[in-house]
């Protein structure tokens, strides 16, 4: 038992008043003549036992009356399993309104069910509690109950994924830091399995994690990402399927090309080019459980290959979760680079350029100069520089680089090895027999040999560790040499179109530098939100701190269990009734037993 006003218990000392009065009243009484004392003595003899019992009873009743009134004033709280008030509790209500909460299950959004539970939790709080609300943005919101109720009421499915393990860990630390008797975290989430994949939350002892059990698993298919490469859009699909439904299924996909964005840096680009393309892909189950992974490749129309920034949107047929059924995407088609190769760049480069020129991938010009390092780097907007064939010229070439402001230079001869180039898959594994070590710092390393930079970019200059010659590397004889040169002159040295993805409402935001568009960010829900497979109670228990801290409960059980660790009923009313009863008994004993 605990008390809301424990200081009032000091008043229990008043319970000694009846006994003290009894002792203090033992003064010498006044003496009066009264002839029939014999009658008095007889009456007293007859009543002695009754009077003694009465005195004892009255003293007990009065002492108990004072004690009960003092106890009532202290507002005792007795443990209860049912309703009732509870001890002051620090509680974080995690209302997971991540995109997956918008899934429609049993004719209603999951979020509605979570919101009801959150309101119920909040309604049970008292002014003595400390309450925070955490939504999918991970921000802890404090405030009055009314303010938090207003937030809950106005909450809709958000666009951010909530890592429940991290959220529970932070919430547990917050409540654990509060000097209150009760500490609870209410997890109101669809408990996606993917939201619990980040390990195990560090939950301090004494913090109760009450998680609302997830609903039934539903089938969902969503667009995880869309990438455009070489005239085709690759649509990655994700989602979940109930256990047992692991047969590949065709997936209709619709691509809308929204048109080009004029791009000065891109050299003009084309206009128009809008249209809608329907395609079908095959979604096949992959990974573990009911996770679905598949990709659909859709060729883009020819007009969309015109230089410039392009926007598009991929769409699936509507299903239970709508937010992942559409996803915008953007890509850039660069204009053909105007390239000049110096005589020292080698015959293989000249041959590759000839091929590209024939295919109209490059044209004659000096936007990009490929040099052999035999002289100072050409004063061109963009340069691709190979090391000089004569080692004696390396120093001169390095001075030329330094004059241009390139922080890299060729150093000692490096050991042979194979190329490693994550961004240029065609180069991976190509042997390099001869090379110079590239010394420098901070700029972008595009390929390495033996862990040492082999291809680096510094501003508008690309620096190679080897000459593009078969005496140095097998690359000129590899099938990917021409595409490599194409990539170097059209994408890498000019600056690859920077298309990032981020969480948020589906849209595309372009980044500009001056008047040039230098990149784009495609917003959409996290692909993991498409997987609606709920976590098992065992996984939830493990992820949230263990069996001794976590309870996964149904809505009714959650309603009964929340605050139950500290739930108390205010017994003051009962005590006051008892006090009235004692007073009535005392009155009866004091008057009726004379």
């Amino acid at each position, binding site marked *: 038992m605990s008390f809301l006003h424990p200081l009032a218990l000091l008043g229990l000392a008043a319970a000694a008043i009846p006994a003290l009065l009894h002792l203090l009243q033992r003064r010498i*009484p006044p003496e*009066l003549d*009264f*002839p*029939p004392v*014999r009658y008095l*003595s007889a009456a007293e003899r007859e009543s002695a036992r009754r009077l003694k019992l009465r005195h004892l009873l009255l003293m007990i009743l009065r002492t108990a009356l004072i004690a009960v009134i003092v106890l009532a004033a202290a507002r005792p709280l007795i443990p209860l399993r049912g309703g009732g008030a509870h001890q002051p509790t620090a509680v974080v209500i995690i209302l997971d309104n991540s995109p997956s909460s918008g899934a429609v299950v049993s004719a209603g959004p999951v979020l509605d069910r979570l919101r009801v539970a959150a309101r119920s939790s909040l309604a049970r709080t008292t002014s003595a509690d400390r309450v925070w609300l955490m939504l999918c943005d991970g921000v802890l919101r404090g405030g009055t109950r009314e303010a938090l109720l207003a937030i809950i009421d106005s909450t809709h499915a958000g666009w951010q994924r909530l890592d429940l393990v991290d959220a529970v860990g932070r919430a547990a630390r917050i409540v654990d830091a509060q000097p209150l008797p009760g500490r609870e975290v209410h997890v109101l989430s669809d408990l996606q399995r993917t939201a619990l994949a980040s390990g195990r939350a560090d939950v301090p002892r004494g913090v109760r994690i009450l998680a609302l059990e997830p609903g039934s698993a539903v089938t969902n298919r969503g667009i995880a990402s869309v990438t455009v490469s070489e005239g085709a859009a690759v649509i990655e699909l994700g989602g979940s399927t109930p256990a047992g439904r692991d047969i590949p299924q065709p997936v209709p996909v619709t691509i809308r090309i929204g048109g080009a964005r004029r791009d000065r840096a891109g050299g003009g680009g084309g206009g128009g080019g809008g249209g809608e393309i329907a395609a079908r892909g095959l979604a096949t189950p992959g990974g573990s459980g009911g996770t679905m992974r598949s990709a659909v490749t859709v060729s883009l129309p020819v007009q969309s290959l015109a230089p410039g920034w392009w926007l598009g949107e991929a769409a699936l047929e509507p299903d239970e979760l709508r937010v992942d059924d559409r996803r915008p995407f953007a890509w850039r088609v660069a204009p053909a680079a105007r390239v000049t190769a110096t005589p020292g760049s080698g015959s293989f480069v000249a041959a590759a350029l000839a091929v590209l020129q024939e295919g109209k991938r490059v044209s004659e010009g000096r936007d990009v100069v490929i040099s052999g390092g035999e002289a100072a780097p050409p004063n061109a907007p963009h340069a691709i520089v190979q090391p000089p064939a004569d080692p004696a010229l390396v120093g001169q070439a390095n001075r030329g680089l330094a004059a241009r402001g390139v922080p890299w230079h060729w150093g000692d001869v490096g050991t042979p090895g194979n190329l490693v180039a994550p961004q240029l898959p065609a180069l991976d594994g190509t042997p390099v027999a001869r090379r110079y070590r590239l010394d420098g710092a901070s700029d972008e390393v595009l390929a390495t040999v033996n862990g040492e930079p082999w291809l680096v970019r510094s501003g508008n200059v690309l620096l190679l560790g080897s000459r593009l010659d078969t005496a140095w590397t097998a690359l000129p004889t590899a099938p990917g040499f021409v595409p490599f040169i194409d990539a170097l002159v059209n994408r890498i040295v000019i600056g690859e179109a920077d298309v990032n993805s981020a969480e948020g409402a589906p849209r595309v935001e372009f980044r500009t530098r001056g008047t040039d568009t230098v990149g784009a960010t495609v917003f959409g829900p996290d692909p993991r939100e498409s997987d609606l497979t709920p976590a098992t109670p065992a996984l939830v228990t493990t992820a949230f701190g263990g069996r001794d801290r976590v309870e996964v409960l149904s809505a009714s059980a959650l309603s009964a269990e929340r605050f139950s660790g500290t739930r108390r009923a205010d017994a003051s009313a009962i005590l006051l009734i008892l006090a009235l009863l004692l007073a009535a008994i005392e009155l009866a004993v004091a008057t009726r*037993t004379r």
Partner: protein
Amino acid sequence: MAQRLDLLDPAEVARLGGIEIVAEGVVEGFLAGVHRSPFRGFSVEFTEHRAYQAGDELRYLDWRILGRSDRLFVKQFEEETNLRAMILLDASRSMAWQGTPERLTKRAYADRLAAALALILLRQRDATGLVTFDEQVRQVIPARVKAGQWTRIVRGLLDTPDGRGTAAHAALQRLTALLARRGMVVLVSDLLFDRELALAALRYLRHRGHQVIVFHLMDPAEVKLTGPPEVRFRDPESSVSVVVRPRELARAYANTVQREIAAWRKACRRHGISYHHVQTDMPFGLALRLLT
């Protein structure tokens, strides 16, 4: 209309004057209120006439005198004057107690009651005497019917001081020797003594052929216990004391008193003794009427 003193509050009546005045006033009122002489019948042996008094029975009216002289006389008979009444008055210390100053002490009440009773008896020409006692016999006025007897009785009452203790049974045993001739014995006392011993003496008187009448006097404060929250009550005669809380003992005390009265009444009835419980706030007339 003149007020009848016998029906007024005894304390108020006592303020009118001494015992004689009060007793005469009470007796006048008392006799005016009854239609026959209170105590005795009349014998067939005529002795003399006396003036008619209110309350005399009309059958004893001498019609001849009425017819001749137009005056009212009643005929008296010989046996009427043969009654010998002895009033035994308890003068113990406990009798000198009063519950409140506004009320008469039991002794004062008993004096006036005895005086009035004696006056009535003497007016009927009954030989009346007085014995006062506490632990000893203090005054003995033999029963006479001659003139001035009432004055002697009153003086005897006045000359008897408040006693110290009560050993009534001893006094009563001595009295039995003084009351040789049969007659009426009226005991006026608060009966705060041993009941069995006192009853033995009264029973002896009864056995000797006396008509015994007991007036049990009590102050109303002795019937209903009141007082401060806690008090030490002390018996003025024995100095025995007891500490009580009157409020919580009141009911038990009242029961004890009623039980004591009932015991006296029952014992007296068993032995042919007339028992009358009188509180000192009872008008004298009502107390006297108990004897009729």
